[in-house]
Structures are given as C-alpha cells and as structure tokens.
C-alpha cells in the first residue's frame, strides 16, 4: 500500500505533522510557495523552517458559495502561528459566527481528502479549536 502524500509541499506528515516555510537567510521573511527570490529583500537563499502548530485566529470568514466539489459552509481563516501567518480552513467546528471567534486559539490537524485511482491518499491540513 502506498504512503499517503501531503496535499501541498509545505505540509510535512508523520508523527508530528506540521507546516514548513521557506525562510530568507538574509531577512527572515517566510514564504510557503516555491521561491525565486525574496519579496522583502530580493535575496535568493532560503532555509526550511518549521512553523508552530498552535496559533490564534487573526481573521476569518464563513464561505457559503464556493467552487463545485467544495463543501459549504466552511470557515476560512488566517491563523497567526507565532508571528507567521497561515491561510487555512478552521475545521471540527460549527461553521457559524456564534462559534468561530476572532482571537480564538487553534491547533493544526490533518485529515484525508480522498484517494486517486492508484489508491494514494492525499492528506490536507486545517486548524481546529485548541482545547
């Protein structure tokens, strides 16, 4: 049986799933995408850094209309993980403004989003309320 694969390159699976960023070795700006150069200082050297798995909700919205195949409503948010902002869905919570709060503490979680025709499972991440 094939190993599950992460949904995006910046998600690391295993015993302690976490996100990794490309950090500019010159100015420490962090990016989650493949980089050509740094958007802050234009330097071209990066190192991989682990992002804390705990954070607080800096802002959110509850999306009721989305592309086909996306379950609605869902909570989209920006989570501040120790000074690095992460774009994510908030999961394992009722998608209502009565439940999602600005500033609420959340933690990273992972979950399967399906298998391809070869049986390979893809694993995505989200953030859930931290107990």
């Amino acid at each position, binding site marked *: 049986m094939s190993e599950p*694969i992460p*949904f*995006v*390159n*910046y998600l690391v699976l295993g015993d302690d799933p976490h996100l990794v960023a490309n950090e500019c070795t010159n100015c420490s*700006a*962090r*990016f*989650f*995408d*493949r980089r050509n150069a740094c*958007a*802050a200082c234009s330097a071209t050297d990066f190192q991989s850094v682990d992002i804390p798995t705990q954070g607080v909700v*800096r*802002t*959110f*919205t*509850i*999306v*009721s*209309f*989305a*592309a086909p*195949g*996306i379950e609605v*409503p*869902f909570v*989209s*948010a*920006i989570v501040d993980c120790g*000074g*690095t*902002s*992460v*774009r*994510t*869905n908030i999961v394992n919570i009722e998608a209502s*403004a009565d439940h999602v709060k*600005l*500033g609420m503490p959340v933690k990273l979680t992972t979950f399967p*989003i399906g298998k*391809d*025709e*070869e049986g*390979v499972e*893809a694993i*995505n*991440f989200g953030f859930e309320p931290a107990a």
Partner: protein
Amino acid sequence: MASEDVFILGIRMTKFGKHKELDTADLAVEATLAALADGGVTMKDMNIIAAGNLMGGAMPIAQVIQKACGQTGIPAYNVSNACATGATALRVVGMSIKAGESDMGLAVGVEKLAGAGLLAGGARKSDGKSWTRSGRYGAVAGVDGRIGTDIMPGVFAQIGMEYGHKYGGANFELFAEISRKNHSHSTLNPLAAYSKEMTLEEIMGDIMIAYPNTRPMCSANCDGAAAAVLVSGSKLKTLSLEQQRRAVKVSASILTSDPYEEACQVLPNVNTLTRAAAKQAYEQAGVGPEDLDLVELHDCFATAELVHYDNLMLCEEGNAVDFFKSGATWRTGSMPVNVSGGLQSKGHPIAATGIANVWEVCHHLRGEAGPRQIEGAKVGLAHVIGLASACGIHVLESNRA
C-alpha cells in the same frame, strides 16, 4: 520647466447594468463619444489613447475603440491592472501629457460582466485522476476552499474582520449599515445598476455569500463603460471659456502596488498601498483629508469600505467604526462617501470603475449632479484598488470661479 498641469475636459459613464444588446465595443464607444462631446472635442484632437478591458482576454480594446469610432494613428496603450485598470488608463494619459508628448488624450474602461457570478483567484478547474503536483505550492488539487478561500467576498470579508479584530467594534450589523448607506445613496443615481433603498433587515437577511458579506453587501457584477478626455493646462487656455470653466483639475494622480509585509502573500494587504497612495496624493495635491467635499472609494464589499476610511485618513487611525457611526459618511454628513451608491449598488464593471468614480466626483465639482449634488463641492477624491494589488487615487479640484 515645470511639467504641465492636467485637467479633465470631458468625462462620461454609461448606465451600469445589463446591456444585452450591446457588446464591449458598443459600450466603450458610447462612453467615448459622450466624453468627447462633453469636452467639445473629437477623436482627431486626441494624441494618445489608453484603454482597459479585463474580460475580453487579449483583445486590444484601445484599437477596437479606434476601429469603431476613429482611427487616427495615435499611440494606443492597452492597460490591465485588475480593479485599478480604469485609474491606470487615466494615469497613462496624464503621464503622457505631463511628459509633454501629448496635449490631449483619451482614457477608456469597459466591461461586460453581467451574470459573471463569483470572481475568484487561481482556482484549478478540476482534479486529475492521479495526484499530480502543480502550482507554486505543489498542491495536488485546487487550494481554493481547501486551504482558505480565493473568492473575493471571502477575501474582503477577512480584510474587514481583521480590522475588527485589531480595533474592535466592527460586527455584522455595522458592515450591513455601511451597505444600507450606499444603497440609500443609489436611489438618487439614475446610472446605477441598482437604485433601491434597502432596510438593515433586508440586507442582513439576504443570501449570505461570505460572512459577514451578504449579497447586497457585495459589488454588483454588471456591464458598463466610462471614458475621459484629458487636456494639458496650456492647451486648455486656448479653448473656450465654457470648456475652461467645466474642466476639472487633476491635482494628484497616484498609483501604488503593495510593498512586502508579513502575511501579505497569505491574505492580500489592501491597507499598505492605499495608505501610501493617500499620503502621496495629499502631498501632490497640497490638500488634506479635511479639505475633501466628497470621496468615492472602492467599496467592492461593505467590509472594504470600513478599512478605507482609515487608509484614506478620513478618520483617526483605528477610529473607522466610530467615524462611520457618527454619520459622517452619509451624503448629509461631514465627509460624504460614495454618494453614487458605490460599487455595491452602482455596480462594478471592473475596468470601467476607476474612471466612473472620477466621473462621479467631476459631476459634483462641476455642479451638475442634479438631485444628488453635494452643494458647493470644490475638492474630491476617487480611490480604487485591485488585487493583488494596485491602488489608484485621483484628487480632483473644481475649476469654477
């Protein structure tokens, strides 16, 4: 030698809404011919044209306009800058005049957008049969909806909620109240796509798109065009007294993009570049926010209008909620904002918006706005922002004695 002053000689927008019988060229030409007539000039007087249209793909809209209403061999610039496209076209013509290359030019923005539905960023069309990584995040399927949202109502909802998190006081009802103001203003604008008064209950009870933005709190996709004729100060002096009296001075024309800041590639930051543009605009024009008689700002969503009160320095930093609650931004208030009805009711045919906002301000500065005239308006500001990201600001001053 000081560079030329720039004036708007003629300017017009079409009715915004559904124009089933008109194509993109028809709309652009309707606005163009009306702007030329408004300025008392013809295509033969133009030394440059800059035009924008986003939904037409690679169509060279400037040449399409020329072929429809006057091919004179002048330089044609096709510009594309998201929701700031119209403002960019204006600025290209203004720069040409300031550089001394032209003494008169035409800027046009046009869009066919009725029924376009939700506009999103880079969503992938469909997921493949076996996981294949693509894009700069190496995602195996579209990230929109799976890792946050790309849809504009959601992106701008987060921008407004972030302001609420930072400063407090912003909630669903407050954002809905901003929308109620703009819908109320629209009842006086015959060119608006929607001009219906709406109660707070109707707005909050409408279909939720992305909390806290319900449908009437989102800019309306519609068809429309706007065009402007710009002229140099020296050329204007050779024209009739009536043309000089109706001309509107472009006291500042600013374009910025978003500087790097933490998180700006995670959620677009519409604040940095708007604040920078506003600062430059006030400096260039030699006026302050307190001198403005009216403002048309980019209320693509109700949640966006709130943050731009702050970004345009219409209020103290962090004080946008109290500023709005004071009633200042209603047409009867001390700082009328979006007396046209704003993008939420007037409509938002993307490339046309940056010129249509300028038209609204000019209409008041010329004293020609009829029932919705802001009495005695002398100075106004028009602001647009497109993701991700471009901000255009024009400060306009009446030339009437």
